[in-house]
């Protein structure tokens, strides 16, 4: 994957957020604001069964009793939740029955983002669910996957086609009452992806969801659920972008993963929501709850995230290690530039015996940004022989940015071994000069150095996306040195 540097470096010179365009398409919106009628409206739009409407309303009523968290190391003006549109669907001329019938404007939108919805043009080995604002537009390779018993579809479709599975697992890992944003999401969630890998099946292709916010004043509240039955394997990737707008937009997603005995789920994120401009105007508030449970023995859940976008990121992809010998991993690169703020990390909750977890976090801060790692390693009373290793490295570009590390360790079993290492470094003038002396300009040098810094994490990404992610790192830091 490191052979592609030239392309990356070529891209570095192209400035600005590349994905900031707006698709001009009529949409079907809910009125602004949040109340029980809006929730009924969303539920009715999606023709949901009664139990799900009740589930939403219960979450909403609970949310009303909650306070927005203030503990993250981020600052933003109070959000007016009545000023947000909670449902916006692009109006399509006809409801598409097949991929060929998708509105050409929407197809072009995704093509501009590098996502082809025509299967023959897709990267081989990757199936895509494309979500714009509140609805899923298309899911590719559905039939091929269905032959193996794999279900990969939008959440809305899953509610219609597989209600028993949805009902069994939704909220089982992240209960609606878990936190302020998960409660909000449970009340108003619109679309997202649903993946179900039956026992013993190894999913033969990458599953991926591409999230796109298009409409103004709209929040995106998707919900993704991945279930891997005993012995199943799946690698899943999500990507996200949004237009450049002056106002902040809210994105509050929930992702739940369930891994049964000997199952393995690899979840990768390349998050590139609009970060706002240089002065901190606009950008996405990315307040996300992601959690997986290693339900069965010998199961494994691995989170990999490359976070370059959003004005504010608040998220802690976590693993509950319930099964004995289960394994949790968190690999993260978080880049902040200009006025961006990130407070991100993970929670590894060791409940089963011989459980293992590994945390590798690489924070890169530039401009006037603020980048915090926050992680919890918890070892329960019965978790004999639990092991954790955490490595948290920060790299600073310039001296106006901040890097912070907040590791929390709670151990209730004295057989546990918990190791934490942390470093902070700066890109040195001498490193850049050394690269210059070998014929590289400073942008190229910085791209090379940060990709080296983030390598351990980037190596975890599926091949198809690693190169894209490398470019993204370079572009995100453009203009931050020299």
């Amino acid at each position, binding site marked *: 994957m*490191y*052979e592609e540097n*030239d392309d990356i*470096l070529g891209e570095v010179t192209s400035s600005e957020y590349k994905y900031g365009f707006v698709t001009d398409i009529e949409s079907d919106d809910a009125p602004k604001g949040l109340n029980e009628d809006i929730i009924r409206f969303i539920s009715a739009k999606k023709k949901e069964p009664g139990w799900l409407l009740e589930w939403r309303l219960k979450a909403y009523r609970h949310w009303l009793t909650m306070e927005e968290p203030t503990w993250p190391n981020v600052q933003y003006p109070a959000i007016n939740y009545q000023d947000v549109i909670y449902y916006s669907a692009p109006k399509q001329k006809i409801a598409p029955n097949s991929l060929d019938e998708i509105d050409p404007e929407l197809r072009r939108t995704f093509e501009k983002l590098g996502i082809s919805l025509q299967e023959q043009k897709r990267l081989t080995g990757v199936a895509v669910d494309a979500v714009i604002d509140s609805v899923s537009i298309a899911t590719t390779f559905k039939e091929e996957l269905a032959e193996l018993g794999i279900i990969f579809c939008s959440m809305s479709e899953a509610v219609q086609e597989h209600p028993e599975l949805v009902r069994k697992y939704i909220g089982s890992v992240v209960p609606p009452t878990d936190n302020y944003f998960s409660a909000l999401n449970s009340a108003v969630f619109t679309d997202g992806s649903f993946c179900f890998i039956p026992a013993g099946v190894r999913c033969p292709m990458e599953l991926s969801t591409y999230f796109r916010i298009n409409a103004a004043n709209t929040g995106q509240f998707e919900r993704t659920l991945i279930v891997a039955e005993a012995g199943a394997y799946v690698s899943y990737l999500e990507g996200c972008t949004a237009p450049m707008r002056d106002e902040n937009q809210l994105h509050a997603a929930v992702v739940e993963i369930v891994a049964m005995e000997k199952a393995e789920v690899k979840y990768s994120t390349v998050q590139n929501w609009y970060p706002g401009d240089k002065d901190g105007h606009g950008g996405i508030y990315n307040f996300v709850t992601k959690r997986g449970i290693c339900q069965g023995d010998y199961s494994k859940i691995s989170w990999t995230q490359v976070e370059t976008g959003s004005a504010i990121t608040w998220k802690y992809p976590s693993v509950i290690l319930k099964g004995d010998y289960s394994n949790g991993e968190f690999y993260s690169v978080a880049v902040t530039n200009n006025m961006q703020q990130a407070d991100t990390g993970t929670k590894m909750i060791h409940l089963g015996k011989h459980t293992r977890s590994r945390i590798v976090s690489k924070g890169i801060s530039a401009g006037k940004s603020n980048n915090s790692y926050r992680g919890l390693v918890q070892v329960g009373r019965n978790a004999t022989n639990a092991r954790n290793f955490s490595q948290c490295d920060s790299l600073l570009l310039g001296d106006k940015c901040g890097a912070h590390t907040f590791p929390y360790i709670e151990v209730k079993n004295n057989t546990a071994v918990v190791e934490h290492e942390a470093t902070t470094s700066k890109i040195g003038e001498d*490193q850049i*000069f050394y690269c*210059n002396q*070998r*014929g590289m300009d400073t942008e190229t040098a910085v791209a090379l150095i940060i990709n080296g810094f983030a390598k351990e994490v980037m190596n975890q990404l599926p091949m198809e996306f690693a190169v894209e992610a490398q470019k993204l790192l370079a572009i995100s830091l453009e203009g931050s040195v020299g």
Partner: protein
Amino acid sequence: MLKITDLHAGIEEKKILKGINLEIKAGEVHAIMGPNGSGKSTLASVLAGRESFEVTGGSVAFQGKDLLEMSPEDRAREGMFLAFQYPVEIPGVSTTNFIKTAVNETRKYRGQEPLDAVAFLKLMKERMKLVQIDQSLLSRSLNEGFSGGEKKRNEIFQMAMLEPKLAILDETDSGLDIDALRIVANGVNQLRSKDNAFLVVTHYQRLLEYIVPDFVHVLYNGRIVKSGTKELALELEEKGYDFIKNELLVTEQA
């Protein structure tokens, strides 16, 4: 190839180079010797374009172009190479990847297509032999955990890959045992041609037994105070730098 005229440079208020004059022609090897702190590395850095040093006077022409107007990367792309006295470490970036980026950036500047993986590998294999460097070393993060000798050998390997017009070797010999010194010198000698030139900065004349220079200059207190042929190096070795100092005192008093 290179013409330095009355070059003055320093850092902050400190004057380090106080009027350097030196001309190097294609095909020549020049050695610069001098005691610690005389300004040898500063001269190398100023030629390579390190911005922390300020040029306060004089001019430098490199292949007919005004060197001091060029960015450090353009100097490199025009064919100037500096083997650093203290090569830096870049964690997570393999030497292979690093040098590939360097080679292709330079090719891009010269309007050439990037080398494809096969051609690059072939070139690398060939040049590795020249300095007897191991593939395993090149797969590791650049200079990270390398011994002093490995770092220096890596510099010469990079030089061999980039095929510079003018290579400045800043104390490439220090920290090398005799075997490593032979290997490095042998690499340099094989790269010598009538089209390129070398400026070899060294503290000891030992290196010059292996890389035989056409000219030897003594840098002292920011000036070239004596120039000669390789016999000058031997004389220095024999009598020490004090003999230069004394000679200078005599001429100053006269």
